[in-house]
């Protein structure tokens, strides 16, 4: 969809009511409304307090291991014979993905609010592990909601969460995946409003979550800006990231949104292919609607019922996308493309063999797009892809898909 007029800035959202254009907002039951207004107030107070930033910076450096490296993927670059490819190595963070960036930020907000019990939803388990990790670190009670289907396909992460002291509650309702885990977390929150903080893992949900998560993840793009300046003396030509809810992507993209020459590509999961109907590409195959507190692109039927998503990647298996992505798509600032299960599996194997890096299936989707695009681009084209998670958790899924018994 072509956007409206070119804007002076793409970094101004959300507005005071939490909207990005027609997207975003606070579509929650009245019982939760006072809570999310309280979260908004608490987050604003944190933003205004230099001590909060200092504390987060300290934890990011000494606990999570930031900054993560910006790595020149030399052999893949040679292999593609086109664009010069860099990986932002967010899979090297503590807990193995970018999710820790957001969890460290939000846990500090939660503690300032005096909350003692943390709940979260998780798909691939990356956010659940990161949440369980920060709860262990700060001695807070932790309950993770996870679809029964995801528990089955992400066993290693379930065990990790339990080792970290979290209670993992399986959700067998609906499609037993991430969206149902989110419904169940919302139901928990509404019943435990006094002591509980809902630590949402992606840049979606009611305001202020999409903005707050974006802010905590923007460290990714800010580091890239500095690191690429050091390595190449200039800005990137293009940025590529996988998009489920879209937190790693918005974290990489946001600091560059007003650099008009930097092209950006969000890669949705096309599952068995957009035309098969079995996919998780909300922009390519969905339409605007309201779910989980925000208006955004959703997979839905003609009656407005939410459809099942499908992706080999549990982390992308969600029928919606963060509202800021919906808006940036609508404005035409970011291009959203997709990659199938099969393409992601090919990328997974190629990256493992040529770079010695097992990518998570989520960034494997981003790499699948890179595989298509990089060979067509000139050698002086600088491309940065967010390697947002490591693939150790996915070895069982990949083995099964390749017909190998472990």
């Amino acid at each position, binding site marked *: 969809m072509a956007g409206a007029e070119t804007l002076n800035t793409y970094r101004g959202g959300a507005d005071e009511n939490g909207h990005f254009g027609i997207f975003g907002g606070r579509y929650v*039951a*009245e019982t939760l409304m006072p809570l999310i207004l309280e979260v908004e107030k608490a987050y604003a107070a944190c933003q205004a307090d230099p001590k909060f930033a200092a504390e987060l910076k300290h934890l990011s450096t000494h606990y999570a291991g930031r900054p993560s490296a910006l790595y020149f993927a030399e052999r893949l670059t040679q292999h593609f014979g086109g664009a010069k490819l860099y990986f932002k190595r967010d899979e090297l963070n503590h807990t193995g993905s970018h999710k820790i960036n957001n969890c460290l930020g939000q846990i500090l907000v939660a503690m300032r609010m005096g909350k003692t019990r943390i709940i979260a939803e998780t798909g691939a388990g990356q956010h659940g592990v990161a949440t369980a990790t920060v709860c262990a670190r700060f001695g807070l009670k932790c309950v993770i909601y996870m679809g029964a289907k995801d528990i089955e396909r992400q066993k290693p992460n379930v065990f990790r969460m339990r080792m970290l002291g979290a209670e993992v509650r399986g959700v067998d309702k609906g499609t037993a995946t991430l969206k149902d885990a989110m419904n169940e977390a*919302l*139901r928990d929150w509404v019943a435990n409003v006094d002591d509980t903080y809902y630590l949402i893992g992606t840049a979606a949900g009611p305001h202020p979550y999409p903005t707050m998560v974006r802010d905590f993840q923007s460290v990714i793009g800010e580091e890239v800006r500095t690191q690429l300046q050091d390595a190449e003396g200039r800005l990137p030509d293009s940025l590529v990231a996988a998009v489920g809810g879209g937190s790693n992507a918005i974290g990489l993209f946001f600091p560059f949104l007003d650099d008009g020459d930097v092209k950006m590509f969000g890669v949705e999961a096309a599952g068995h292919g957009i035309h098969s109907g079995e996919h998780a590409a909300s922009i390519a195959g969905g339409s605007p609607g*309201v779910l*989980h507190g925000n208006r955004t692109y959703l997979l839905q039927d003609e*009656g407005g019922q939410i459809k099942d998503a499908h992706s080999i990647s549990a982390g992308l298996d969600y029928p919606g996308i963060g509202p800021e992505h919906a808006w940036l798509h609508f404005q035409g600032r970011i291009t959203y493309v997709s990659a199938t299960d099969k393409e992601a599996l090919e990328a997974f194997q190629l990256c493992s063999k040529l770079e010695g890096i097992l990518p998570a299936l989520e960034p494997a989707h981003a790499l699948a797009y890179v595989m298509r695009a990089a060979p067509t681009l000139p050698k002086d084209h600088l491309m940065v892809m967010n390697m947002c998670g490591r693939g150790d958790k996915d070895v069982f899924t990949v083995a099964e898909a390749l017909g190998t018994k472990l």
Partner: protein
Amino acid sequence: MSVPKLNPENTGNRIAARFELLAKHKRPGLVTFITANDPTPGVFMDILEGLPAAGADLIEIGIPFSDPAADGPAIQLSGQRALKHGTKIDDVLEAVREFRRDEIDTPIILMGYYNPIYHYGDQEFAEAAAKAGVDGVIVVDLPPEESEELHVHLRANDIHMIFLSAPTSSDARLPTILGKASGFVYYVAITGITGTASASEDAVKAATARLRRHTTLPIAVGFGIRTPQQAYAIGKHADAAVVGSAIVDVIAQGVKPDGTVEKGLAVKVLEFVKSLATGVHGTWP
């Protein structure tokens, strides 16, 4: 933005007329909730048409949604049963139309989540609902801050938008809700999902007293009312008691594992509604 308010005494709308009648008889009302087409379109219609005679003073019909994040297991399952029949908004409106052929006094309130309505079109929905004979709409995930896009069309079609207030709605926040409210105020008695915990009578007494300091609209109290005794206790303090999950549970008990419905289920459900009505009307000879 200042919002034009519907006149609560508006006699053009059945909700105001019904609460006036209840006030005249000095008794609280019973509001019953069932999901459209649960367990089947036929049995649902039998239940719906029997509700006024069984003692329901106002009727809420749930529009089923795939992701009812504010509902407990009972209403989640009832929505899934309804969706198995492919239930859409047009089917719900058709049921209301059919009901209205014989019944012109009992208010009908549609209750659901915003996405199916948004997908249908706010204006199209408001116009079609008015034509079918709908009197009020409750959209669980449209708080006052997000309600205007639909509310403007409901107002234009003389349909009340019923807002929820909750134990978490502070005195500072209540004017935001009640400034837009018309028809009646729906007080969610517990912090939780439908069909789980129950509030104490004392808590409801305090809550309704607090609400009445902010509004002259009738107050209906729901969430957690399961028995005639509870309905009686709530009715002492509220203008109406809402019962949903407990009725839906009776429906669920009549659905066999293979999805077929036991004979006489509609009668059984209506008997239960009668017992609730006896409870609510316990204050009225």
